[in-house]
């Protein structure tokens, strides 16, 4: 399967600070990818590198087998909606579509107009008078009417109310179903993306902490609880992601592709939310990893 985004040791430095570092990634085509991480983790940097708005300080990035931003043919293949779904306030909805038609060779005016109609938007209305949800839908319409192979959306849901979020995701998933476009969308909340994504990339503190098919990630992580145990006594095939201990009980979140045989454990599957939080928390703990000493958390 071809990769839509492939990076190798990718890094971006601003002054002395690395916004993104040691990023090696291969995202297969046809996925809806959730790019998740706390604010400032490097999500926007990674997306901007993929569009070609930024150039890497080190390493390389390939998007749909081309160099990001490298000429009109490359730009045609990628649709991008920046944070806060920008639109030209003084231009009407219709003028936005006209501009899209002028600027994009593969523009599908019929698709654009049909979506605007479905959304109940007036072509004569100025973009500046649209609600946040409507503006987001206009930006999404622009990005998909150019018929890209890859759609990159930076925090598209952040400023939307719950109903607008749902409508936005409904529209997006309809396009995925009908056009088979690959999508990467970022959010600092996994809950927003859980229903739509089948691939997860977790960025924490400028580094990739976790990347993979969500079903595979969920199948290889388990919550174990049972009598108090030292993490060093666990089999070496089980990587401890998170642990907490009380006087008598220990709870671990482990990653393993082996079955868990120890009868002392109660084994519970993890939710995507728990998984993401565990990996995020791991980045903050002073001594992460499975060989850390037994700390007591009451």
């Amino acid at each position, binding site marked *: 399967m071809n990769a839509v985004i492939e990076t190798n040791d990718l890094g971006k430095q601003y002054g002395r600070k690395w916004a993104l570092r040691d990023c090696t990634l291969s995202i297969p085509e046809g996925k*809806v990818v959730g790019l998740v991480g706390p604010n400032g983790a490097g999500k926007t940097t990674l997306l901007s590198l993929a569009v070609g708005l930024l150039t890497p300080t080190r390493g390389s990035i390939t998007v749909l087998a081309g160099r990001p931003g490298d000429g009109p043919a490359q730009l045609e293949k990628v649709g991008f909606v920046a944070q806060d779904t920008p639109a030209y306030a003084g231009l009407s909805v219709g003028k936005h579509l006209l501009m899209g038609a002028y600027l994009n060779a593969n523009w599908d005016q019929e698709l654009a107009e049909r979506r605007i109609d479905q959304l109940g938007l007036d072509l004569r209305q100025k973009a500046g008078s649209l609600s946040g949800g409507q503006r987001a839908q206009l930006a999404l319409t622009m990005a998909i009417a150019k018929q890209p192979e890859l759609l990159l959306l930076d925090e598209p849901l952040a400023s939307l109310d719950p109903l607008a979020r749902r409508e936005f995701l*409904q529209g*997006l998933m309809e396009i995925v179903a009908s056009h088979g476009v690959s999508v990467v969308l970022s959010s600092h909340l996994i809950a927003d993306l859980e*229903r739509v*994504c089948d691939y997860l990339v977790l960025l924490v503190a400028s580094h990739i902490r976790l990347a993979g098919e969500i079903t595979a990630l969920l199948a290889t992580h388990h919550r174990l609880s049972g009598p108090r145990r030292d993490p060093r006594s666990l089999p070496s095939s089980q990587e401890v992601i998170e642990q907490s201990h009380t006087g008598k009980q220990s709870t671990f979140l482990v990653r393993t592709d082996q079955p868990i045989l120890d009868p002392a454990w109660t084994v519970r599957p993890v939710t995507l939310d728990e998984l993401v939080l565990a990996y995020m928390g791991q980045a903050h703990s002073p001594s992460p990893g499975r060989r850390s000493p037994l700390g007591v958390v009451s």
Partner: protein
Amino acid sequence: MIEFQLDTASGVATYLQLVQQVRHALQLGILEPGDRLPTAQQVVAKLAINPNTVLKAYRDLEREGLVRPRPGQGTFIVGTLPRSDPAVQERFLASMTTWLRKAHAAGLGPDDIEAIYRTAVRNSFAEGVEGVA
């Protein structure tokens, strides 16, 4: 046509919820051979879920011999599931209600009752009792 619903709090995988709803509709006679399932596009437009999730559910149902895709037309019900006797269902509903009233009177709350129910289901499933999955 069946309309899917999602229970996001249930913890049951989304594709499995879709599979269960089709099976359930077959058991209740809401769906019958020849009926068409909604297209992936129709489902995602309503539920805002990944289209692959719908396709995975339909593939599972196909593997069970319950549905078959017809190219260009959609996915159709071809199989049936044994429908349980309404009289039997009613009898068990009545005895369950009696049991619940007794449990309540004995001071058990909804959480206790649910825990007991789950344990019982798990135990009977381990013994190989069918139809409780």
